């Protein structure tokens, strides 16, 4: 088997940031809303982790605060976030829309997303490898709100895709 090594060529200036300490964590919450028939998701990351990650990916944006209200930057962020957090129903990716973003003064950044309307599936696959290709220690945790209580699902770089019964 021929091993292919694809080197991505990045044409912009490299800036290595070492802001204090990376948090290496993102936490998502998800619930299927029976009334709107949509999945509702919030996803929290550390602002400086995300900025470093986007810079590494070559996604050139100003500081996160300045992205609010600017579609060109929001679309770029949305693309990366929804690439790192995917819901698959019967193997097909469910498109998610970024409908809001909140930046706290303590560097917590929370993204709010919804899915299209759909009947509640019996199970879904979740692929949650956000930032794992940049921070090897990255762990992502999903809290699923169900009628019978919460379910916690951990995603690691060795196990970034999980099947969840709803």
């Amino acid at each position: 088997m021929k091993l292919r090594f694809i080197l991505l060529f990045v044409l912009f200036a490299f800036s290595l940031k070492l802001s204090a300490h990376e948090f290496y964590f993102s936490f998502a919450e998800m619930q299927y809303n029976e009334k709107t028939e949509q999945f509702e998701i919030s996803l929290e990351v550390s602002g400086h982790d995300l900025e470093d990650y986007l810079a590494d990916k070559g996604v050139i944006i100003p500081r996160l605060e300045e992205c609010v209200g600017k579609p060109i930057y929001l679309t770029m962020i949305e693309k990366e976030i929804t690439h790192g957090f995917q819901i698959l129903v019967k193997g097909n990716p469910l498109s998610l829309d970024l409908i809001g973003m909140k930046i706290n003064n303590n560097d917590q950044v929370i993204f709010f997303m919804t899915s299209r309307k759909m009947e509640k599936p019996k199970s879904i696959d979740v692929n949650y490898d956000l930032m794992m290709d940049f921070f090897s220690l990255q762990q992502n945790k999903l809290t699923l709100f169900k009628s019978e209580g919460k379910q916690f699902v951990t995603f690691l770089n060795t196990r970034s895709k999980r099947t969840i019964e709803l």
Partner: protein
Amino acid sequence: MRILFTIIFALTSLNSWSQGHENLENINMNKFRQLKQELATPNVYRTASGAPGHEYYQQRADYKIEIELDDEKQTIHGKERITYVNNSPDRLDYLWLQLDQNMRAQGSDSKLIQVERMEDFNTLSKVHSKMFEFDGGYKIEYIKATNGQNMDYAINKTMLRIDLKEALQPGKSISFDLKWWYNINDRMKIGGRSGYEYFPENENHLYTIAQFFPRMCVYNDVEGWQNKQFLGRGEFTLPFGDYDVEIKVPGDHVIAATGVLQNESQVLTSQQRERLAQAKKDFTKPTLIITQEEATENEKTKSKKSKVWKFKAENVRDFAFATSRKFIWDVMPVKIEGKVTLAMSYYPKEGNPLWEKYSTEVVAHTLEVYSDHTIPYPYPVAISVHAASIGMEYPMICFNYGRPEEDGTYSPRLKYGMMSVIIHEVGHNFFPMIINSDERQWTWMDEGLNTFLQYVTEQKWERDYPSRRGPAYMISDYMGGDKEYISPIMTNSESIWQFGNNAYGKPATALNILRETIMGRELFDYAFKIYAERWAFKHPTPADFFRTMEDASGVDLDWFWRGWFYTTDHVEIAMTNVKWFQMNTGNPTIEKQWSEIKDERGSEFIGNQRNQADTNKTRLERKPGLGDFYNTQDPYSIETADEEDFGKLQETLSQKDIDLLNSGMQFYELNFKNNGGLVMPLIIKAEFVDGSEEVIRIPAEIWLKHNYLTSKVLYFKKEVSAFVLDPFLETADTDLSNNSWPRKVEPTRFKLFKENVTRENPMQRSKR
């Protein structure tokens, strides 16, 4: 019959014995068992109370250093004389020094041991970074005795052993000279705590130089010679001593350093000296010694002359400095218990306006709060230096990030980030610079304790300061879920998964929980201060901390250290069931009426309802003659016999009993399940039907026998409408959805977000 009884008895015994025992090996796994095996045996050096023992000793290393910084080639050359005093009872045949700069030597272990995947090479910049063969290791030119004779030595990566011709006897000292140089790393390209940042627009450098000279390793009763290589993460472990340092830099550079400047008249202008003298008198605000305009002018000069700055520092464990021609400099004195310290900041114009407004004020505030909780800050200066992207601490000086946009604006996130990092790094003066723990072994001993006091300091800066770490609820996401890639706090610095949460966030949270919930502020603050006083200018270990906190507070915390520091268990306690009881007064007037109400309120089996509809007339209805006393008796009517019985009962009761029966007391049996593994106190809020509330705090020892299931009966004079477990979010419970009776729906962040939207979100607006 006897056999059956015996079997039942045996099963019951096994079941009751196994409460609190997790495995089948008949080993005591109770979460409250003492930490005897985990902690070192107390001895004459370290007592069982956690204090230094009567024969405690520590070594001493004094340094006289001459440095020359080459601003053209970015190299540093140094000569140093070390005087090492052997205060131990042991004969030392050799001495070990740390060569931390060798971490940047070509082919160093730091690079070799990095676990890599192909994703780490997926951009050109990453490949450059990985393949960048910068040689930043030491070039040792000589090591000589004071008589000029070369000394034998061997370099083992980041450590250097000097073989002594004659062993260093207890109580004796030895002096020797070293000469060395190395290339300074570009901190912005290859990272590092020490190095330089280059400003291309005006071709200037800002150097933040640390762990730059060969330093003595610690030798003590715990480790012998410290023998862990410097791999990059686990920081430093160093003996105390006095420093006499001369630094030669370009004539237009300004230096900030550990210690007190000795030759102001030779390196400062008369105007700067005059301003400094004025600044020392004004305790109300920082005074600029070098203004932004002056620093901006200074950037343009490129002096070919040089100046030598002389500093002295007493009883410190290290020395660091920063130098640049870009520095703005401000000073404000702080008086702590009668002693004056100069809080100072050095920053380029790129740090303004943020730095001029906040840095020195934050330094002063930190010294005041930390001094309250530990010991009065003992050093003459405390300095914050602006350094892009990092936060790093050394005695009396630290390097901190916080750079506004080019237009001078900044986000609140940056402002609070900068203030927090200054608090944190200045706070490191106490942990580990003064309370000198072994950072290379235990990151949490300095980072965790310091992050705890950082939170306390932040909250005293501004109400509702947006702290990132400290409160219990902030760590629960990290602690819950599956435990792969999470380490116990008691893990060596180099082996920790999730460094920030493990060594900073979790111990800081644990201490907060001790302070707010387990011990209370008075006991905790006293014990914490005792620890600081006992171990100031000494080398404490984890056991010394654990023991002192217990010894000074009178609280057995072994279960807490075990759970929070030795395991990855988390807090998830569920209120599984609540049963409501009332006292039977025996009074038929009350009890029969109560029974009637209860029966009326009770749910009815659906079959009864259907039978009513299906059956037109029962046999008894058709033939009333089949009825007897029991078919006609009203179970709720009060009969003479009932009243007689009640009268007899009253005669047997004391007035106290009668009062109790008539008190209307309500009893509730609450059942709890420990799903997460960590035993914690039960904080229960009872909400009453009349709208009032009461909080009941039950110590964690309620789990003493059975570590996973427990129950408690609470009684009140009023009827309870709801119970809430951990109502003030103080235990780091990871799942609040099972903390209420009756069950409450826990809102998701998304729901809160939607509820909080009072107008169109800027992002929604932009997407229209």
